[in-house]
């Protein structure tokens, strides 16, 4: 077996490096930069049942070792996606994951139902960090009951693997992870962005047009590693680690914490060829560490005992 191959619940991946939704386009936009067949899996930008225009600019701002964004999930809607993006996606020779969001539980279910009927993807990832319009605009993923109902509903309309992407903006991420598992999730991915805000002292204006947004990049990596560690120990589902990965040791850190794979997001903006670089650097780094299979690293952190 190839030293980089990993199992992600029902999914067998050639390697553990995936793209993070929202940072890699809606089909093959990145194909000019490298051969997309090298990806462990491609995870596309969120699609929603109805088209969305996106948020008021400015939508991005640099922050220390990271960035804030408030993009607002602009997309042409699921019917547009099926007609225009899915045919391109089908030609990308890797595991294909479509990320879905909605304003209501029913929109998630109807969206996944239509996509599943169209076919051509290998798994779904549910973005449950968006506001629940029927639930006082609180994010779906901040309430364990809503999370379970949502995942169970989607589970009912597809046999494809379901990845549930968890928000860090909760009191206890383990409770939400357990709810997603109870609803029938196959895989958990975490973390989505951390809520944050930045203000320009000269103009007294927030740096984002939506006033606040989501923080990503190396700044959030320790938060993500800790949440991956907690969730992977508490829930019997494979975990995908996300948050600030830029270097090969970042990948290894998430695997040690308990992730079976990782997603690379913000680093694609800095270095569009970061993923092939990580894939080139990972095997020699594993050899240096005396590891013969990448799977040997999963959850292999040696936590200190209390003394």
């Amino acid at each position: 077996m190839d030293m980089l191959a990993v199992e992600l619940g029902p999914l067998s991946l050639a390697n553990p490096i995936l793209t993070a939704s929202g940072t890699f386009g809606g089909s093959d936009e990145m194909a000019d930069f490298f051969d997309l067949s090298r990806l462990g899996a491609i995870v596309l930008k969120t699609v929603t049942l109805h088209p969305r225009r996106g948020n008021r600019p400015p939508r991005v701002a640099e922050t220390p070792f990271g960035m804030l964004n408030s993009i607002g999930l602009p997309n042409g809607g699921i019917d547009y996606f099926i007609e225009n993006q899915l045919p391109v996606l089908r030609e990308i020779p890797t595991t294909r994951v479509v990320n879905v969001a909605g304003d209501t539980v029913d929109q998630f279910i109807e969206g996944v139902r239509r996509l599943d009927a169209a076919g051509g993807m290998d798994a779904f990832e549910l973005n449950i960090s968006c506001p629940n319009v029927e639930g006082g605009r609180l994010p779906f993923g901040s309430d364990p009951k809503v999370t379970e109902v949502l995942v169970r509903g989607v589970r009912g309309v597809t046999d494809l693997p379901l990845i549930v992407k968890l928000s860090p903006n909760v009191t206890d991420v383990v409770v939400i992870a357990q709810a997603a598992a109870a609803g029938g999730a196959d895989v958990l991915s975490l973390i989505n962005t951390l809520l944050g805000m930045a203000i320009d002292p000269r103009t007294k204006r927030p740096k984002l047009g939506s006033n606040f947004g989501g923080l990503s990049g190396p700044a959030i990596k320790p938060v993500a590693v800790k949440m991956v560690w907690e969730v992977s120990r508490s829930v019997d589902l494979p975990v995908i680690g996300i948050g600030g990965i830029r270097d090969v040791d970042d990948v290894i850190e998430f695997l040690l914490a308990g992730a079976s794979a990782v997603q690379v997001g913000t680093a694609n903006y800095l270095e569009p060829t970061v993923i092939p670089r990580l894939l080139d650097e990972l095997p020699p780094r594993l050899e240096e560490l005396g590891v013969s299979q990448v799977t040997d690293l999963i959850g292999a952190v040696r936590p200190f005992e209390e003394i």
Partner: protein
Amino acid sequence: MQIAEKASVAGRVVKYQGVGAAVHRLTLEVPASIAAPDPGQFYMLRPFDEPLPFLPRAFSVSRSRLADTTLHLDFLIKVYGSGTEWLCDRREGDRVRVTGPLGHGWTLDSTPRRVFLVAGGIGLAPFPATIDALRERSSTVELHLLYGARRADELVGLDDSSYEGVTLEFATEDGSRDHRGYVTDVLAERIASGACGPDDLVLACGPNAMLGAVAKHTLPANIPTQVAMEEAMACGFGVCNGCAVRVLDSAGEFGIYERVCIDGPVFDAMRVDWPALAAIHG
């Protein structure tokens, strides 16, 4: 040789030159296996292997030329924040991550009698290649550069052979050279006197407020106008959806967002929702 439409590579600084007023000219060398840029296209630049400055910054390319198996790219960069400060500290031999060429440049398919290039400050950057391309298309085109800055000593970057034969007019906010006020006042005067009209072309690059003022004068006079826009941007190649600008949709209503990086950076001024832009940056 297979030519890549765009790529992200280690570029090497082959020439550095300070041109005054915190403006620097940087020539970067990349492999000639990457397509040469069209006038008005841009590149994302950041450190090749250092963590900071974090996000890449977008820069219009001033001109490019093939040099053996390499492509030389000239940039005109003004120190403004940490990203431009880092770039302007580079010297010959240093490495820079270069991603591009990106976006859509000027549409130069018409044959106008006169072209008015309107530059605000460092907005002068894309014009050398633009002038060369205009002259390639027409030997008789009359070229005017209207160049504005706060003060006379900020009117830099004209030490380029492309500007020979171009009629130069200046505006400074403090009146230290030629017209006191904005460069768009000069444009408005030309329009009022009939020296710039519907058979001409206006190409503008500068701060968004200046571009809005250009459009305010040219659009009622039916003068074809293209503007090279800027907006906060993280990737530069269409995947982050950060650099949204509100434009006319196919029904002629303002309401959709397009991306400055791949739908622009050059837009037909008629399509831009200028009041929305002013509100966003106000």
